[in-house]
């Protein structure tokens, strides 16, 4: 056994025991020798200092007085077991244990034990190193690490520390939350492997580190856990002592959407102004067409007495002329031309009225009219990006729509249009075998009217349904929807009209929105309605 020191050989080098004990006296570690039954035979000055006993106090005592009670109690049996089985547990291994000071306090030590034999008498020698200071330093270091973690956790940005090899060294709570991966999982992983979408910036990272300059990328589109979002990204290189870099990611999706909305609103406003001017310009020629038709019609008919006189001047028989016009459908053609002018002007009028939703006014309106116009808009609304065809959807209407309610007509139209549009978009994914269908069902009781809009589309999961009325929540790809539609609908129904809007859906079961509106328009309406 190589760890058994042959003292006889030892003394050959160290001429006599005095010299050996001199060494033991001077050694920087505590040295304690015990005999086979555990009694202390030697106790050097460092051991004296560590445990607070003088050598004379402990010589002959059982070593267990230097141990914590639980270990001390068992020590005799450990010795006995070793003497019988020769199976080492601590011998020649060394480990961290606790020592007990004379005053009862406990302190960490590193203990290595060797077996000694002197002229057939066995004993053990223990070398003891005080770990208190090291432990305190370790604690301080780990506190510093925890403090650093606490600092980066307190920030709302996602912060990721990486070393020069691209291995993640730091990972804050925001990163954990957004990536769905806790710190223990992330640290030690390769940055680009873990976040493949950031592959596009791995060159930036290398550059930032090499040139020691921060690099910024704004509004990059990233996909995290299947969710696409816009992020601002900063790469801050660490100083050369550490190498590596800190990557900061901020989810700016909401800000980007807000900008989109502002751009959209601005565009709408300018279109509004343009459309108002255009309406005037178009209505003038329409006026010429329409009044022109009426003039022609009247001058061809028997209505005007002077027609007869003028016809006679040219030897024309006005009654025969009437027959001719009837046979040739002249009056029908004229009235159709007039109708077309009327329709063209109505389209302009309605479009303008619809886009001017900034003015809220409650008026009495027939439900049928509201639904008609919303359907009319839906049919004419073709968003190129979404390109669904509303005309292919089967519309079924149930219930008596001949109900008058007081509401902000444009706002309610907008809500209905939004819901119809959503349904149409959702049903785009239907197979060819299924005919897309929207059921509109109207009912009423004494104070309320209820409008149901149900489609046979794919429905929604409860997760989606729960968030559907949230501002900026959208299931559409970034850029193709603002996520404001349904939150605005919710606002219009619940706040402006003091009604309710509910959603009944589950995957594969279609989607049904149920709107309930007070017939009198709620209190907002009552104060508004009387004015005008």
């Amino acid at each position: 056994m190589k760890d058994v020191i042959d003292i006889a050989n030892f003394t050959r080098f160290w001429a006599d025991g005095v010299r050996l004990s001199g060494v033991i006296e001077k050694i920087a570690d505590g040295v304690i020798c015990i005999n086979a039954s555990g009694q202390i035979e030697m106790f050097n000055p460092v051991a004296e200092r560590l445990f607070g006993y003088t050598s004379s106090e402990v010589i002959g005592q059982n070593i267990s007085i230097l141990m914590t009670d639980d270990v001390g109690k068992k020590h005799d049996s450990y010795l006995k077991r070793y003497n019988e089985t020769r199976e080492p547990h601590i011998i020649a291994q060394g480990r961290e244990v606790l020592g007990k000071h004379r005053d009862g306090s406990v302190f960490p030590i590193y203990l290595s034990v060797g077996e000694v034999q002197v002229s057939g008498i066995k004993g053990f020698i223990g070398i003891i190193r005080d770990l208190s200071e090291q432990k305190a330093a370790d604690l301080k270091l780990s506190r510093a690490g925890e403090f650093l973690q606490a600092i980066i956790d307190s920030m709302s940005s996602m912060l990721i520390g990486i070393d020069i090899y691209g291995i993640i060294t730091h990972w804050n709570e925001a990163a954990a939350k957004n990536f769905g991966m806790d710190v223990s999982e992330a640290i030690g992983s390769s940055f680009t492997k873990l976040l493949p979408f950031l592959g596009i910036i791995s060159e930036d990272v290398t550059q930032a580190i090499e040139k020691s300059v921060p690099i910024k990328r704004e509004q990059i589109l990233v996909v995290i856990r299947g969710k696409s979002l816009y992020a601002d990204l900063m790469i801050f290189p660490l100083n050369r002592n550490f190498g590596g870099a800190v990557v900061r990611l901020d989810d700016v999706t909401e800000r980007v959407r807000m900008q989109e909305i502002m751009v959209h609103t601005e565009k709408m406003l300018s279109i509004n102004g343009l459309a108002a001017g255009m309406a005037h310009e178009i209505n003038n020629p329409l006026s010429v067409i329409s009044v022109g038709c009426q003039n022609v019609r009247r001058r061809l008919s028997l209505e005007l007495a002077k027609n007869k006189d003028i016809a006679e001047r040219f030897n024309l028989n006005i009654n025969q002329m009437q027959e001719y016009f009837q046979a040739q459908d002249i009056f029908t053609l004229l009235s159709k031309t007039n109708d077309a002018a009327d329709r063209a002007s109505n389209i302009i009028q309605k479009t303008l009225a619809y886009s001017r939703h900034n003015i809220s006014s409650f008026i009495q309106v027939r439900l049928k009219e509201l639904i008609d116009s919303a359907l009319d808009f839906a049919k004419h609304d073709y968003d190129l990006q979404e390109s669904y065809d509303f005309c292919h959807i089967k519309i079924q209407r149930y219930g008596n729509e001949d109900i008058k309610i007081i509401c902000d007509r444009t706002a309610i139209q907008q809500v209905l249009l939004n819901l119809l549009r959503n349904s149409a978009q959702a049903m785009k994914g239907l197979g060819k075998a299924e005919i897309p269908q929207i059921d509109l069902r109207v009912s009423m009781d004494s104070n309320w009217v209820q409008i149901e809009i149900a489609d046979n589309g794919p429905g929604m999961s409860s997760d989606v349904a729960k968030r559907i009325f949230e501002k900026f929540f959208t299931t559409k790809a970034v850029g193709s929807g603002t996520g404001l539609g349904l939150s605005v609908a919710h606002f219009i129904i619940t706040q402006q009209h003091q009604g309710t809007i509910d959603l009944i859906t589950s995957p594969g079961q279609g989607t049904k929105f149920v709107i309930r509106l007070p017939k009198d328009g709620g209190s907002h309406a009552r104060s508004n309605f009387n004015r005008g």
Partner: protein
Amino acid sequence: MPEAILIVDDEQGVLDNLATYLEDEDLVVYTARSGEEAIRRIDAGLNVQICIVDLRLRGMSGIETIVKIRNLAPQTHFIIHTGSEDKSVATVLQRVGLDNLPVFRKPLTNMSALVSKLQAYYDHK
């Protein structure tokens, strides 16, 4: 003296067609291509009972025209004939206190409605 009407509109086609229709109703019709022209003629002694005025005119606006004619000839009735959208017109008229004036929207696809309005003024007299 026959009942006379002045139509103010910057679109010749609109003037011609309205005039034709109303003349067929045996009304005396004058036309003006601008607010300035309308005022000039009334100032020069043209006597009309009713003015049909477009709101969006080149030069002086329809509203200004109405206010000025009203100063010259307070008994004049006014009818607004506009291609602009209802709501914005209503807002503007309300702001200048002219919201009690009848508004006819272009295109007048049913001229008899305008004729009965004119008739009502004459019967009232």
